[in-house]
C-alpha cells in the first residue's frame, strides 16, 4: 500500500498537527529548566484551540483515508470539537489545583494532549484496528493521569484499578473484534455492513458484537461495566476527574455510535436490545446509588452514570433524530459537568480540598454567587426547564417516543424524578442549612469556567436551535 501524498492527507491534518505539537511540547517541557512551568499548560490550550480551528476549517462532507481506516465526516467533526472543548476547559481547571498539590508537572498537559489525540482518532476510526489503536492511545494516557498524584494513596489506587479493569475491558473488546473478523472476514465497518446485508446473522457474530459493546460500555462507565467509576472519580485528582467526566465520554459515544450505525445497521434489532438494557440499568443505578453518597465526587460519578444512561436512550431509538438527541445531550452534558467540577474545585479550605457534601451547608450565605451557579447547574442536571439540561433530556426522550419506545421514555422520566431528589438535596443544603465554615475565594480560572458554563446552562434555550441544527447535520452524515 503506497503512502498517500501529503496534500492528500488533508482530512487528518488536525490530528497530525496535534501529534507533532504534543511531542514538541514534551520537548519544551523536558528541556526547560523550570520543572513546574505553567506556560506548558498555556501552550497546550493554544494547541487545542488551534486543532479546533483546523477541524472547524475542514470542508464539509465525508472523506476516507488509509483504505477506509480513517474517516473524516460531519459527525466526527462535531464530536471532535466537543472533545477539544472539554479537554481545554479541563486544563484551565487544573492549573491552580496542581500548583497547590505541588504536582504542577509539564507531563500533565502533554498527557492530556495525547489522550485527546487518541479521542480524536477514535471519533474518526472506521475499522476495528484503528479503533482499537486509538482507544489504547487514549486509555494509556488516562491511566497515568488517574494516578497523577503519586504520593496520594487514593490516587494511586484509582490509577491501578482503572488500569486493571481497563485491561480487562480491552481484552473483551479485542475478543469481540476477533469474533467479528472471524464471522465476516473483514475489519472495515463498511465491509462488515456489506457482509451482514447479504448473509443471515449468526450467533457468533452477535457474541462478538456483545463483547465489543462491553468494551465500549466500560469506557462509557455504563452499568454493569461501571464499577470502576466511583472509586476512580473519587481517587483521581479533581481536574483529572473533570476531564474523565467530559471528553472521554464524548469519544466513547462517538465510537459506539459509529460502530453500531456504520458496521451493524443490519442487525439493529439486536444491538438496540443491548443498548436499551444498558441504558435502563445505568439510569436506574445512577439515580438510586447517588442518593446514598456523602462524597460529592462519588455523587458526580453516579450522576455521570445516569447521564450516560439518558444519552443512550437516544441511541436506543436507532433513528437519525435519536443520534441527534445523543449529540445534543453530550454537548450540554459536558458543559454542565465541567461547571459542576469547577464548583467542586472551588470547595477549598486552606490548602486542602473539601469533598463532603455536608460542607456545602449554608453556602448561599457565605458565597451566594457560587451557590447560585451550582444551583443552576444542579437544576439543569435534574432537567428543569428552561435550563440546558431540560433540552438534553427532551430531545432524547422525544426520539425514544417517536421510535415508540414509550416505556423506555417512562423509565427515563421516573429515574429523572428520583435523581432530582439528590440534586435538590444539595440545593436545600446550600439554602436552608446553617452555614459551615467559609471556603477559600474562587480563583480567576475556576471562576471563568464556572461563569462560562453557568451562562451557557442558563441561556442556552435562546440559541438552542443552532445546536439542534448542527447536531442534525452531523447526525445526518451517518445515515
Amino acid at each position, binding site marked *: 500500500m503506497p503512502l498517500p501524498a501529503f496534500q492528500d492527507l488533508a482530512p487528518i491534518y488536525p490530528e497530525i498537527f496535534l501529534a507533532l505539537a504534543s511531542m514538541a511540547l514534551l520537548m519544551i517541557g523536558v528541556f526547560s529548566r523550570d520543572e513546574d512551568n505553567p506556560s506548558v499548560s498555556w501552550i497546550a490550550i493554544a494547541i487545542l484551540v488551534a486543532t479546533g480551528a483546523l477541524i472547524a476549517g475542514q470542508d464539509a462532507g465525508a472523506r476516507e483515508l488509509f483504505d477506509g481506516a480513517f474517516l473524516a465526516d460531519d459527525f466526527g467533526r462535531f464530536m471532535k470539537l466537543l472533545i477539544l472543548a472539554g479537554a481545554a476547559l479541563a486544563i484551565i481547571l487544573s492549573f491552580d489545583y496542581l500548583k497547590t498539590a505541588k504536582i504542577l508537572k509539564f507531563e500533565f498537559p502533554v498527557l492530556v494532549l495525547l489522550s485527546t489525540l487518541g479521542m480524536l482518532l477514535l471519533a474518526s476510526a472506521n475499522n476495528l484496528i484503528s479503533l482499537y489503536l486509538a482507544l489504547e492511545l487514549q486509555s494509556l494516557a488516562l491511566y497515568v493521569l488517574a494516578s497523577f498524584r503519586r504520593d496520594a494513596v487514593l490516587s494511586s489506587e484509582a490509577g*491501578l*484499578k482503572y488500569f*486493571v*479493569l481497563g485491561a*480487562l*475491558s480491552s481484552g*473483551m473488546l479485542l475478543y469481540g473484534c476477533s469474533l467479528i473478523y472471524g464471522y465476516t472476514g473483514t475489519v472495515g465497518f463498511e465491509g462488515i455492513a456489506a457482509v451482514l446485508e447479504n448473509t443471515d446473522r449468526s*450467533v457468533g457474530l*452477535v*457474541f462478538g458484537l*456483545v*463483547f465489543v459493546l*462491553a468494551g465500549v460500555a*466500560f469506557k462509557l462507565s455504563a*452499568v*454493569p*461495566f461501571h*464499577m*470502576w467509576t*466511583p*472509586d476512580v472519580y473519587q481517587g483521581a485528582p479533581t481536574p483529572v476527574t473533570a476531564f474523565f467526566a467530559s471528553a472521554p465520554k464524548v469519544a466513547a459515544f462517538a465510537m459506539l455510535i459509529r460502530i453500531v450505525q456504520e458496521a451493524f445497521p443490519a442487525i439493529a434489532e*439486536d444491538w438496540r*436490545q*443491548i443498548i436499551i*438494557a444498558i441504558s435502563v440499568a445505568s439510569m436506574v*443505578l445512577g439515580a*438510586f*446509588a447517588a*442518593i*446514598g*453518597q456523602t462524597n460529592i465526587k462519588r455523587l458526580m460519578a453516579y450522576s455521570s452514570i445516569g447521564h450516560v444512561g439518558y444519552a443512550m436512550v437516544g441511541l436506543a431509538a436507532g433513528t437519525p433524530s435519536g443520534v441527534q438527541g445523543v449529540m445534543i445531550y453530550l454537548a450540554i452534558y459536558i458543559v454542565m459537568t465541567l461547571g459542576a467540577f469547577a464548583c467542586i474545585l472551588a470547595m477549598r479550605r486552606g490548602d486542602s480540598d473539601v469533598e463532603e457534601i455536608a460542607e456545602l451547608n449554608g453556602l448561599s450565605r457565605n458565597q451566594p454567587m457560587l451557590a447560585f451557579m451550582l444551583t443552576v447547574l444542579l437544576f439543569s442536571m435534574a432537567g428543569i426547564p428552561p435550563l440546558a439540561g431540560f433540552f438534553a433530556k427532551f430531545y432524547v426522550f422525544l426520539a425514544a417516543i417517536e421510535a415508540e419506545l414509550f416505556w423506555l421514555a417512562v423509565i427515563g422520566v421516573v429515574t429523572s424524578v*428520583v435523581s432530582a*431528589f439528590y440534586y435538590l438535596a444539595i440545593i436545600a443544603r446550600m439554602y436552608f442549612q446553617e452555614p459551615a465554615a467559609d471556603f477559600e475565594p474562587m480563583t480567576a480560572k475556576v471562576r471563568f469556567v464556572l461563569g462560562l458554563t453557568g451562562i451557557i446552562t442558563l441561556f442556552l434555550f435562546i440559541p438552542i436551535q443552532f445546536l439542534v441544527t448542527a447536531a442534525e447535520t452531523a447526525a445526518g452524515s451517518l445515515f
Partner: protein
Amino acid sequence: MYSAIVFLPLIGAIIAGVFGRWLGAKGAAYLTCTFMVVSAILSWVAFYRVGLSGDEIRAPIMDWVNSGDLRTSWSLRIDTLTAVMLVVVNTVSSLVHIYSIGYMSHDNSQPRFFAYLSLFTFAMLMLVTADNLLQLFFGWEGVGLASYLLIGFWYHKPSANAAAIKAFVVNRVGDFGFALGIFACFAVFGTISFDEIFASAPDQVGTTIDFLGYQLDTMTVICLLLFIGAMGKSAQFLLHTWLPDAMEGPTPVSALIHAATMVTAGVFMVARLSPLFELAPIPMTTCEAIGALTALFAATVGVAQNDIKRVIAYSTCSQLGYMFVALGVGAYSAGIFHLFTHAFFKALLFLGAGSVIHALHDEQDLRKMGGLRKGIPVTFWVMIIGTLALTGFPYTAGFFSKDMIIEASHAAHSEVAHYAFIALVAAAFLTSFYSWRLIFMTFFGAPRHDEETAKHVHESPLVMLVPLCVLSVGALLAGYLGKPYFIGEGYDDFWRSSLFTAPENHILEEAHHSPAWVVWLPTVMMAGGFLLAFLAYIAVPTLPQAAMRTFKPIHAFLYNKWYIDELYDWLFVRPFKWLARTLWKTGDGRIIDGLGPDGISARVVDITNRVVKLQTGFVYHYAFVMLIGIALIVSYFAYIYWAQFWSGF
C-alpha cells in the same frame, strides 16, 4: 365614561393593594375614596342618560373566551336596570368608603381594607353590567371572593375566619346551582349572551330535557337552577345561615356588602333574567313561596336577637324575602324598587349601628346599651330615620316600596300568593316591633353599660356622620322621588325593555287598584308593632322578661334561629367532618401517602442502601460484575437464537 365607572374601583383596588405600604393608610384611603366618588358621580350621569333620557348602551371591551362553540365577548350592558344598580352600588360604596376612613382609623391594615372594598365594588359592577351569563358569573364569584376576604378581614379572630369560610361554603351550594343553570342555558340555547337567549327563550316553552331518563320541562329546570344561585347569594331560607355570621366583618362591610349590594345580586339576577322567568311558572311560584317564608322566618328570629348587628342582619334577610315575593308575583319593578330604597335605609341602619358600636368601644350587645339618646344625638336621629323608612312610615322610602309589594302579593291570584300576603303582613308587624325594640333598647331607658364605658361615649367624627346624613336624605326621599318611575305612571318610559313582562301580566295595574284595607294594612301593622315595642320596652319594662318566661320554648326556638344551624351541623357538617377525617387519616395518610410518597421514598432508600453495598472497593468484585453482565447478555442472545433454531423444526 361607562368603562371608567367600572374600572376606576379596580384601579383603586390595585393601587391600594399593591402600593398600600408605600401610600400609607391615609393615602390608600383617600385614593380609593376619590376614585369611588368620581365613579359614583359618573353613575348618576349614566342614570340620567339611560334611565331618564332613554339611551341604551352596549360598550364592548374585548373578545373574552372563544372556545369551540362558546364565543363570549366582554361588553358593558347599560340599560335602566343596570343604571339603577350602578347608582345604588356606587353611591353606597362611595359613602361606605368615606365612612370607613373614620371607622377604620384605628386599624393597622387599612390599605388592605380599602383595596378589598374597592375590589368588591369592581366585582359588583362587573356583575350588574354583565351582557352575558359568563360575565354575570365572573362578577358573582368576584363579589363572593371579596365578601370572603372582608368577612375574614380580622383574620386573627377565629370566629371571623369561621364565618368567612361558612359564607364561602354556603354560597358554593348556590353557585353550584347557578353554574349548572348556565351550563343548561348553553346546552339548550347554544349561547350565553343575554340578547340571544332572550330572543330564543319563547321557542323553548313546553320542550323537555332528558335527564337520566326523566323528561324535565326545559324552562323550569333552567330557571330553578338559576334561582338556587340567587337563593345562595341573597341568603334566602335554607341558604341564609351565612348572612348573620357574616356580621363578624367590619361594620362598613356589613353595610355595603351584606345589606345594600351583594346580597341583592340574586334579586338583580332574577330581574335581569325576567324574560326567562316570565316563561316559567313553577320557578316563579317557588320564588314567591321561598321569599315569603324567608321574610316571615327572618323577622321572627330578629325579634329574639340581642346583637345589634344580627338584628339588622335578620332584618336584611327578611327584606330580601319581600323582594323575592315581588319578583315571584311578576312585579319585577316593585322588587327592584324595594332593592333601591332598601339599599339606602339599610346601609343607613348598619352605618348607624356602626356609629353606636364605635361610641361604645366595640360593644354590640343590646342588653348592655340604653340611654344613648343624649350621648350620640346625630346617630340617634339618623337611626330613627332609618327605622321609620324600614318600617314603612308614610312617605318615607319603605312606605312606597314595601307597601307596593304587599299590595302586589294580594293582587296575585294563587294559593301561594294568598299565603305570601299573610306572611308579609305578619312580617311587617314583626319588622316594626324588632326595629323599635332595637331603638328603645339602644337609645332609651337607663344605661346598662358600665360607667367606664359611659364616660367615653362620644359622637362619631364628621367623616362618619356626613355619609349617615346623606343616606338619611336618601332614606326619606328615595321612595317618593322614585315611585313614579319605578312603579308609577313613568314605568314604560323608564324601564323600557330592561324588564320583561308577559302581555297577560298586569300585576302592577291590579296592585294599584287594591282595596282600601289592603292599602292601609301595612301601616296599621307598623303602628301596631311600634305600640307593642313601646309597651314592652318603655311603658312596662318587666313585660319582656315575663313573656320570655311564659313562652320559654318559643323564645328558645326563635333565639336559636329555628335551630337551623344545629340541624345543618347534625345533617351536613358532622358527617362531612367525619368523612373528611376518615379520608384524610386512612385514605390519604395511610393509603396514598403510605403507598405513595412515603412508601416510595422509603423504598428508594432501601434500594440505595443495597446498591451502595455492591460497591465494595475490591477489584475482583468489579471484574466479577463485569463478567456477570456480559454473561447475562450473551446468555440472553444464546437463548433467543436457540429458541429460533429449535422453532425451525
